[in-house]
């Protein structure tokens, strides 16, 4: 499996899980849970593809995890900037766990998956 695809898979799965955990950390968001999960999953897929693409170009565990952290935090920030129906923003609850998800995706795409080897 190539790295962008692996990233998408890991990011997507973690995105679903991340969305579901909103029920625990912010139970008042239960009515919007479907939208939260969809949004979180799409975020996870995009982050996964981007970080996976980076991992196919740069083979460095530290750099891959940092890039994962930054990319995931960016998208998490975009999501967190959207207010909930009652106007509440859940910045920390979205960005912090979302960043860790980015770290996990960065780790997974550096360690696993196959990168294209360019002929010289």
């Amino acid at each position, binding site marked *: 499996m190539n790295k962008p695809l692996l990233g998408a898979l890991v990011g997507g799965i973690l995105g679903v899980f991340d969305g579901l955990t909103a029920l*625990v*950390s*912010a139970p008042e968001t239960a009515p919007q849970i479907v939208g939260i999960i969809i949004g979180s999953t799409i975020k996870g897929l995009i982050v996964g593809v981007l970080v996976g693409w980076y991992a196919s170009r740069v083979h460095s565990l530290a750099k891959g995890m940092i890039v994962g952290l930054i990319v995931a935090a960016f998208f998490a920030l975009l999501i967190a900037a959207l207010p909930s129906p009652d106007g509440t923003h859940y910045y920390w*609850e979205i960005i912090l*766990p979302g960043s*860790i*998800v980015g*770290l*996990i995706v960065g*780790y997974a795409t550096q360690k696993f998956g196959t990168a294209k080897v360019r002929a010289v």
Partner: protein
Amino acid sequence: MTTWLSNTVVDHLRVVATWPELPGDRYVIERPIGRGGMGTVYVARDTLLERDVAIKVSNAPVAGSGLDERLRQEAQVLARLEHPGIVPVHDAGQLADGRMFYVMKLVHGETLSAHTKRLLGEAAILGVFERVTETIAFAHEAGVIHRDLKPSNVMVGRFGEVLVLDWGVAKAIEEEAAASATRVGTPGFMPPEQARGEATSTSDVFALGALLFWMLTDAMPPPARDDALRVLNAAARPPRRLAAIVLKCLASEPSDRYSNAAALAADLARYRAGQPVAAHRETTLERIGLWFIKYRTFILLVAAYLVMRAMFAFVR
């Protein structure tokens, strides 16, 4: 007036008066560097290719004797085994008095005895040992057993290359089985069956185990397993799996050891990768521990995520 000769000159004359007379003028002997039971090794200058080489000359008292024949066999074994861990042979021939010699690469480096003193930690030791094992595994694959592995027969070159030397008593595996019992080897690195003249590839495995034991503890392995384990734990405190690998090599019964150096090399690779090894059956707890060590980064990240989620839930 008689010439006055200093001690240095007298010693020098005693040496050069018996230097081998090589045919032609391509190789020029410069100095002796070692003498073993079978031959004497000299540094020489290859005037054609303008490089230093090592020349091993038979110690045979007369041409055509058993020692000559063994040197010829050693040269042929070396020529057949082309491997980065085996010194390449460049040339061979006969001296003016008919004795055998062969020319090989001159290795600039230090013996394992000196090198091991500078190795820090298990990973460095295993890194060197693995190269020795791979070399012997290659030889076994080619049907040759070394029969005299010991620290002084391993050199580490100036670029970090690891070379196994002195294949003078090496034998084809089939020949060894067919030949009458000949006792060769070095006490301490020689298994019981080799002392009886019945060496096989497992005999080399025993020697490799003794070598690793020595590298980890700076001592020779005691014959009894329990004593060996005690010395290992006292000197090196290796993980159980590594100790099991060493002890498996040193088993007194050949059938209890690894069948050849390749099997040992494979188990060692598994050990270094954090995987279960054939020499040791892990308990459930050990398996979980191995799994945790192998995936520790991932597990810690997931744990951090879950802790963070739990924190938010708690704070709320």
